[in-house]
């Protein structure tokens, strides 16, 4: 079984596309899951953005220096693609959740998903990276290219916003 670095070398040196498909198989799950959370459960959009991430990564593969993990590098690309898309296609947030997102989710989790949609893209991104991908704050700082202290502050701030939104849901249910 090849390591990520070996697969990348095979793609670059031998133009071995099969090695790149192996990299996609290995890393698609965290990338697609991240976009799924970021897009409020819109599977089609999540897959389009994930596809764009892997294509961009393929084109820029020779610039991957190997200082960070390949997945961390992919997350950095995914971040840029998500923020570009969020800027281009801004939509007024709604409480609607796609039907397929209702599967195996508790009411609280659906509320979390709804509340996330009301956060700013940057806040949504930082929470998704910290919680969904089990990345350390240092890795998140590397992906977002911001200082470690700012990551910690922004996570707390985003959680506060999410919390107030969730409290407003709880109150409206009473």
């Amino acid at each position: 079984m090849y390591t990520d670095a070996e697969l990348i070398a095979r793609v670059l040196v031998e133009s071995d596309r099969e090695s790149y498909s192996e990299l996609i198989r290995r890393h698609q799950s965290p990338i697609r899951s991240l976009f799924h959370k970021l897009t409020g459960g819109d599977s089609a959009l999540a897959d389009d953005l994930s596809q764009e991430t892997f294509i961009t990564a393929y084109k820029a593969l020779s610039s991957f220096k190997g200082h960070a993990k390949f997945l961390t590098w992919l997350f950095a690309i995914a971040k840029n693609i998500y923020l570009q898309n969020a800027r281009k296609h801004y939509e007024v947030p709604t409480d609607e959740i796609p039907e397929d997102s209702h599967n195996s989710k508790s009411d609280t989790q659906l509320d979390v998903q709804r509340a996330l949609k009301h956060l700013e893209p940057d806040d949504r991104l930082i929470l998704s990276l910290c919680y969904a991908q089990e990345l350390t704050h240092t890795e998140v700082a590397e992906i977002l290219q911001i200082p470690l202290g700012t990551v910690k502050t922004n996570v707390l701030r985003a959680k506060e916003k999410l919390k107030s939104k969730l409290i407003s849901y709880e109150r409206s249910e009473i």
Partner: protein
Amino acid sequence: MTNDKKNLEQNLDQELDAFFSQSLPPSEDFTQKVMIALPQEPRLAWITSAGPLCGGLVGILFLYFVAPLNLSTVLYLIGSVKGRCSMAFTYAPLLISQISVVTLIAVGLATLWYLAEEDFI
């Protein structure tokens, strides 16, 4: 602090963990979809950066040779449009004045060759 808020305070991390722990399983369809959309082979970094550079050079050569403008004016115009590069363009005439017309023609031909190789023209 209300009871609701206290409960939420205690459970938020747990709820977030539970929400985010659900991940999508790998899909072969997705892999195939990406593989079909991939370009033929990854571009080497120098080619990626050479594209805009060559495009810029072609633009300068065009304005210099085809339009009746001298090089300083051309660079001044580009510098004005691309404000961020104004410093670079301030010094560029000094540097480029050292380059002979023959060199510029050689660069132009190399650029055209590159563009043809890349199927841009």
